[in-house]
């Protein structure tokens, strides 16, 4: 707990330095948040190049929005929200170029991180089959471990809507696994 507090204070300081024009501090912010942003985009868009494009766009947007950010926690929430909305916009485009079957294959150099890679791949595939908004709700819930109230805040919807999306999505995923 004390470690987390120290990290938060460090991040606040890093943000303050980035706001003062320190590009190395901004690079540290990107380094700290890149896995979160990239993974949100990767799990929703199912394409590594597309996820990287979105991540870059979001961080460039973060740079432009630095003066408006009040704290490191605010910056993290901002990144989460902007990434989700960018992904939903991409998924709603008529011609979504990111739906590639091989999109979430891990890099060859990565060792298998799970005892059940096939189940995980199937789950990711089923999540990718959900409509854009419920898909983001599920990703925020299970990737970022956010509570429904935080998801509601990130996606600008009511908590009841979030809970409803979660319930229906879990049902769909469960049915998909058993069929």
């Amino acid at each position, binding site marked *: 707990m004390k470690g987390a507090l120290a990290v938060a204070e460090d991040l606040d300081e890093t943000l303050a330095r980035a706001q003062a024009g320190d*590009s190395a501090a*901004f*690079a540290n912010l*990107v*380094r700290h948040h*890149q*896995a*979160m*942003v*990239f*993974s949100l985009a*990767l*799990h929703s868009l199912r394409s*590594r190049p597309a996820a*990287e494009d979105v*991540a*870059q766009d979001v*961080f*460039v947007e973060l*740079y432009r929005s630095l003066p408006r950010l009040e704290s490191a926690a605010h910056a993290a929430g901002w990144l989460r929200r902007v990434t989700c909305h960018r992904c939903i916009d991409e998924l709603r485009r008529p011609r979504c170029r990111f739906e590639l079957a091989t999109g979430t294959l*891990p890099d060859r150099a990565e060792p298998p*991180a*799970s005892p*059940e890679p096939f*189940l*995980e*791949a199937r*789950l*990711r595939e089923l*999540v990718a089959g959900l409509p854009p908004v419920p898909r983001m709700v*599920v*990703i925020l819930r*299970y*990737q970022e*471990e956010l509570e429904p109230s935080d998801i509601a805040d990130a996606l600008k919807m009511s908590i009841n809507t979030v809970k409803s999306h979660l319930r229906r999505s*879990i049902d769909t*995923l*469960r049915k998909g*696994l058993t069929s």
Partner: protein
Amino acid sequence: MNLDDDLRRALRRQPAPDGVVDKVMARIVEEAPDDRPSPIRFLAVAAAITLVVAGGARYFQHQQAVSEAERVKTEIRLALQITIEKIALVQVRLNDTQVPLQPDTAFEERNP
């Protein structure tokens, strides 16, 4: 099978590809506005200022000519009005002096 745990594992964070930070920083540098005035922008601003000044001077000259014409018109109108009044006065005087000749009936009676 616990679906929640399986989903957590399936959707765990993935490391970002190498080079994201460098690419982001390069884009920021690329997109940063250049503070130095470019020659084209300088020329455009100079041309715009010249146009505005020349147009303003031309408009001022035009306005001067219009007001001069108005002044001359007013003076001519006044002069004409004065002339008309004078002519009218002369006509009245002429009318007053031209007493019509009445036939002298007494003379005609004396000298038939």
